[in-house]
């Protein structure tokens, strides 16, 4: 009896599970960054599969900008309760309140997540931090190792990346340093959606088409929220939209879509002529190297 070779999704799943188990075997205090978005939900699903029938041996950490969609927070809390996981939340608001951070003029809090993240890593002594970053998202991310060293300042130096051979990861680090780990490095947006469909993974409802009051800014449909609603000649209108990514509400745009099922979402992603970040993330449009600059400072 011959055993069929793995298909692409099997291969990606096995690779991610291998990465989770390596970290569990070699690190003392790993943590999974979890926002309730599709990529971090996928991470948690893979972590559960890696250690079943035992529980996931790491907690989750959410860097909460406070600019949330209520559906996503409800979803986050439900998944934590259902799987019996531990969730730590670092509120960006706390850093603003005690003066460690200052609100930006444009109201965007995505870049403000870096300091609470690094402070939490130091305070809780996390040595390995799982993120849902994918190399197909952006050109700087395309150059990142699966296991990537951060210095005591949380910085990434693309010129000093370690060789990463076969599936042997070198996680050695000095006190104060940590590694970022990206188990779904090799997944594309379409792989993520196909796998979500295959595995029947639940997602926050805002990933599917719904009616929402939105306004147009910088070519994107933004929702009203604590980050400031329409101003000047911007005006709210009811649109049929969904979200392709979920980030800070101030800079994550919705796309017009009638896709209410996974089949429809996959068809839409397949036919899309824009990358998910290009379509929906104002923060990546700031400059040609916006993501690289934020990564160097210790961003996800």
């Amino acid at each position: 009896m011959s055993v069929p070779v793995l298909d692409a999704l099997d291969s990606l799943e096995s690779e991610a599970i291998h990465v989770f188990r390596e970290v569990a075997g070699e690190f003392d205090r790993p943590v999974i960054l979890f926002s309730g978005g599709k990529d971090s939900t996928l991470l948690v699903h893979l972590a559960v599969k890696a250690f079943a029938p035992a529980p996931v041996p790491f907690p989750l950490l959410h860097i909460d900008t406070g600019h949330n969609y209520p559906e996503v927070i409800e979803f986050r809390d439900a998944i934590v309760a259902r799987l019996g996981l531990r969730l730590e939340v670092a509120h960006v608001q706390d850093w603003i309140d005690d003066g460690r951070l200052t609100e930006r003029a444009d109201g965007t809090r995505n870049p403000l997540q870096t300091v609470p993240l690094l402070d939490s890593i130091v305070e809780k002594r996390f040595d390995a931090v799982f993120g849902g970053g994918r190399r197909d998202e952006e050109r700087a991310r395309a150059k990142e190792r699966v296991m990537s060293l951060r210095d005591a300042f949380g910085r990434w130096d693309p010129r000093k990346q370690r060789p990463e051979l076969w599936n042997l990861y070198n996680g050695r680090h000095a006190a104060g340093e940590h590694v970022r780990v990206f188990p779904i490095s090799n997944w594309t947006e379409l792989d993520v959606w196909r796998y979500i469909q295959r595995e029947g993974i639940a997602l926050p409802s805002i990933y599917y088409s719904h009616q929402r009051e939105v306004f147009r800014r910088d070519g994107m449909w933004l929702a009203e929220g604590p980050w400031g609603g329409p101003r000047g000649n911007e005006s709210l209108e009811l649109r049929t939209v969904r979200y392709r990514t979920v980030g800070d509400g101030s800079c994550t745009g919705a796309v017009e879509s009638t896709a209410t099922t996974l089949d429809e979402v996959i068809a839409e992603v397949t036919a899309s002529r824009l990358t998910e970040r290009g379509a929906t993330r104002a923060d990546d449009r700031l400059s040609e190297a916006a993501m690289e600059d934020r990564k160097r400072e210790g961003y996800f």
Partner: protein
Amino acid sequence: MGRDLLRFATAGSVDDGKSTLVGRLLYDTKSVLADQIEAVQRASVDKGLATPDLSLLVDGLRAEREQGITIDVAYRYFGTPTREFVLADTPGHVQYTRNTVTGASTAELAVLLVDARHGVVEQTRRHAAVLALLRVPRLVLAINKIDLVDYDQGVLEAIGKDFAGLARSLGFSTDSGDDAVVTIPVSALVGDNVVERSPRTPWYEGPTLLGHLESVPVTGPEVDAPFRLPVQYVIRPRTEELHDYRGYAGQVASGTVRPGDEVVVLPGGHRTTVASVETADGPLEAAAAGRSVTVLLADDIDLSRGDVIAAAGAPPRVTDDFDATLCWLSEKPLHPGARLLLKHGTRTTQVIVGELRDRLDTDTLALSVPKTLAINDIGRVALRTADPLPVDDYADIRATGGFLLIDPQSGCAVPAAPQVLAGVDDVPSTWIT
């Protein structure tokens, strides 16, 4: 069963047009989306170029765009109706050989570029030697910029013949019957023979680059090799209903495992039987190389992370004293007597470097006896490890034949990053007992 996945790497010298070739593959397979094309067009206009510079699709870091070079391995993803591809695009600079090694170590195929005007150059020989050392199963020589030699059949065939000789002397099979080494004349700039067959090379009868990538097998020799599973983690739920559950978690490195198989646990040597092969989705009848599983054994034996579960009928050798061929990637030269760490599968142990036996001149392929190994050197050394290791020949099973050497000194130094060195087991005749 969906589409399968081919992992491949590209390598070549600076200015061979590698990033342009990768950009061309992405562009012609419609894997580049409108906003990315717009960004490239905007940047090309800013640079005063007449046509879009496709290399900008892949060279994303600031220094890369400023200097027009590729610094690090970039991973790219594209698909066709039959297959998905993970492409490791590796830099051409000598000092970034570490990245070429990184990109090629997981590849089932490597595309090596040469400039049709220059043919096989020193860097081609170096890359080919590294690819041979890593035993990348298949090689494609893409002769680029054929538009600049007027599609001259004689020139291109001479380069192909030159390269076939090099590949043969490095141990690649160049029989026309198999496809281990294939030569394809292309122009990444114009698109000849990359995705579309070129009308300007009527004498060329082989496949286009994409056609070849779509048809080669996606698996290496591991599939047919004996079963190996380096244990990553012991799963013990310790719940009431699963009180005695002990599952050995790992990714099948080679071969196939089924319930009932006789296995041996190494280096300890305990023999037992596979009770079941499990995943979170339930038990499997069989699991092949590449699959992450949890194995339950019939007997309760002492087994932990670092051990290897192997086919009892064809086990690996267990040794603490052996020769290996290294690609030295550290700035700090390797001296005899060096004390390092060795990471093999899921076990890390101490190692002492003995005699430096030889060093390969990648230009002439001649061997000499070195005093030290410097960065980017390929050489054979004697090693003695603190713990015995179950090892296979790298040619048969990459996962149990390859290892890393790690410098523990710089591993603790701030701010220098630890130096890591690639190691590859040598042929069996060099084992010392």
